[in-house]
């Protein structure tokens, strides 16, 4: 299974490297948010009790997570295209493990998103964020990004198999990203939220991902963030969604 995954992963990587424009295209939105919201809420950081030196320092992990959301939520669209063009059939006729077909796609999307996150990080630093450049910290943050990327790519691929059409898939993708973003502390510290919103955020895996990235990237780390907890939750989330996507794919044999 791992060999199959590796070969298929290579295939997707080759295609992406041949046409880098699509990956850069999906970077536009996070960069735009970083720029606009960073400027918009600049003075928010002067509110007493704000946990970071400047707003953009606080917002950066949010943007990094946003990159994951916007990058991985459309991963299912290319699966639909491959199904209709018969490429997936070709793979299914070969003695290829079914899980590896899904896993290779999901990993490819996650790796793509990690590359995009690094670019966002550089952009934020250029805008004045005091991000930590310690490679260990960066690696830790990127690991969270990878796990979250796996989770959302799995969600998207699974939905693609269930919905079977691009339009509902895109709508679902939209419905997932923005509400999830706002029901977390990506943009606003948790202590500033109304209590009910705070509780909603605690049920949101994004919240844990954001806080764990914040814990490693922002110095000094805000009090309410913890890396290990975030990592555990995100990993569990990724595992569950991946298993779901693989089982959905196995039902493709009609």
């Amino acid at each position: 299974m791992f060999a199959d995954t590796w070969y298929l992963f290579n295939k997707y990587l080759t295609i992406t490297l041949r046409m880098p424009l699509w990956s850069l295209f999906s970077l536009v939105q996070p960069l735009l948010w970083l720029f606009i919201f960073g400027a918009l809420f600049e003075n928010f950081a002067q509110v007493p009790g704000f946990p970071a030196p400047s707003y953009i320092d606080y917002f950066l992990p949010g943007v990094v997570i946003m990159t994951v959301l916007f990058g991985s939520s459309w991963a299912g669209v290319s699966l639909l295209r491959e199904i209709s063009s018969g490429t997936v059939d070709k793979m299914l006729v070969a003695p290829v493990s079914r899980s590896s077909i899904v896993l290779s796609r999901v990993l490819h999307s996650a790796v793509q998103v990690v590359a995009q996150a690094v670019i966002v990080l550089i952009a934020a630093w250029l805008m004045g964020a005091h991000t930590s450049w310690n490679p260990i910290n960066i690696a830790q943050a990127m690991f969270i990004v990878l796990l979250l990327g796996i989770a959302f790519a799995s969600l998207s691929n699974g939905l693609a198999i269930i919905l079977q059409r691009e339009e509902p898939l895109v709508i679902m993708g939209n419905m997932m990203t923005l509400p999830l973003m706002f029901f977390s502390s990506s943009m606003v510290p948790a202590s500033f939220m109304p209590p009910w919103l705070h509780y909603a955020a605690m049920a949101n895996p994004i919240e844990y991902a954001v806080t764990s990235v914040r814990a490693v990237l922002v110095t000094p780390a805000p009090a309410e963030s913890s890396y290990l907890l975030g990592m555990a939750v995100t990993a569990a989330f990724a595992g569950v969604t991946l298993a779901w996507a693989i089982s959905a794919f196995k039902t493709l044999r009609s």
Partner: protein
Amino acid sequence: MIKISGLTKTYPSGAKAVDRLDLSVEEGEILALLGPNGAGKSTTIRVLTTLAGFDDGQVTVAGHDIDRDPDAVRRSIGYVAQETGVDYFLTGRENLVLQGRLYRMNRADIDARVTELASYFTLTEHLDQLVSSYSGGMRRKLDIATALIHRPKVLFLDEPTLGLDTQSRQSLWQYIRKLNDELRLTILLTTHYLEEADRLSHRVAIIANGQIKVIGTAEALKDAIQGDAVTVEFEHNDDKSHWLAQQLRAEDYVRDLTWENNKLHLYVTNGAAAVPRVMEKATTANVRVKNIAFARPTLDDIFIKHTGASIQGSKETTGGAWWEKWAGKGGGKWAKQWQDSESKDTHVSSTMQPGEITPSATLNPNQTWPAPTESKDAPKEPRTELPSATSTTWPSDQWDPESVKKWQSQWPEQGGNWPKDSQWQTSSESPAALADPQPKPATQKAESWPSDPSDSKTGQTWPSQAPERGSEQTKDSPSAEPTQANNLAETHAPAGEESEKSAWPSDQWDPESTKKWQSQWPDKGGDWPKGQQ
């Protein structure tokens, strides 16, 4: 090599995609599954290639049972789908190498095989270009190459030449045949092209409604029809051609016949002898035949015979429409039989025996067709002469003599009181006076139009002349008057009378009246148009 028994697959809606299908394919043969769209061909192939599940039955491919060991089956088969499954954004080589990897071949083997296949399919120079730059035929060939990379025992082709031009198709057939000859590869292909099944395959299995209707070599199937097929194409699919069909049915050399739109398919013992006899019958009956041809029966004829419908699917609509017109209202036993066959799922009427004539070619047995009489569009004899004076047929585009006489009787000169009590009274001018602008007393003769009936010598043309002449004869025989028609020609009929002209075209002015008219011109002494208002 492939053995299917009792394969059944039902759609979620309840309809059967495949219904107790039995098929067996020998090693090294090419078998064509021939059928219209929706017959179950693609479903069968998908089951055989482990892409789809099934509800009942047993399937064995290359010695492995599909249910028990699907991976072993997958290792021994290659599949080329209807849509080309190669990835457009990779090069040909990358596609082939990936396939090889997925089949767990080692790198050296893959490389050697890629070179071999590329030269076999003449793709070597394009191997390192993106597949998006390939033509349709090349993509098809690459698709087949990727299916062959692991040296399978069985190759499945789903509509291999769909959408290709003739040249690519011929070349693809050559490749398929070469594969079969040189590698003893078993090939199962689905198609709805008769030519492909005929020329490419060893055996043909006709599939319709999820069942195999008949299987055998193309030659054997055609021989079963025994004889030649004569196709007669009529100008119109009307009563006359159906009457002719009924006549032909009774002929001894016609074994069977079917209608297809306005073509009549006759199955005869000897085509060459039948054609002149059919033509003779058609000519006698005055039926327009557009085209007649005879040939060995084609697979389409076999298809019609075994499934009741042409693979082009056109026969059914003609028969039904024709039936509604002629036999729908209680049309006897044939209509009932037709309705029975329509209500069943299959198109094969169970009451029909092979060789029996299908309903659309026959009529209500109680109804007899009259021999056709001369039809409206029968070619007329060319008109060499104009109707004589004694002609009894009245050209319909000319005035009826009775009404003309009536009209003329109203003229003052004739004693009538027109136009006195007509709208022209106010101007106190008769049409005659208007035509001749010079005001004349009513007593004066109207000179130009219409002509003065009393002027009998000038041979006036327009109808008013006729009664005068006719009136001469009326004294003799009233019945002869209608014959003295207003047909201008008849006034100058070769009755041997005054005119030196025998036949005057009715749509031209009589020279006499023209002369008279011209005489009124000032420069000739007349006083027109001076008196014109």
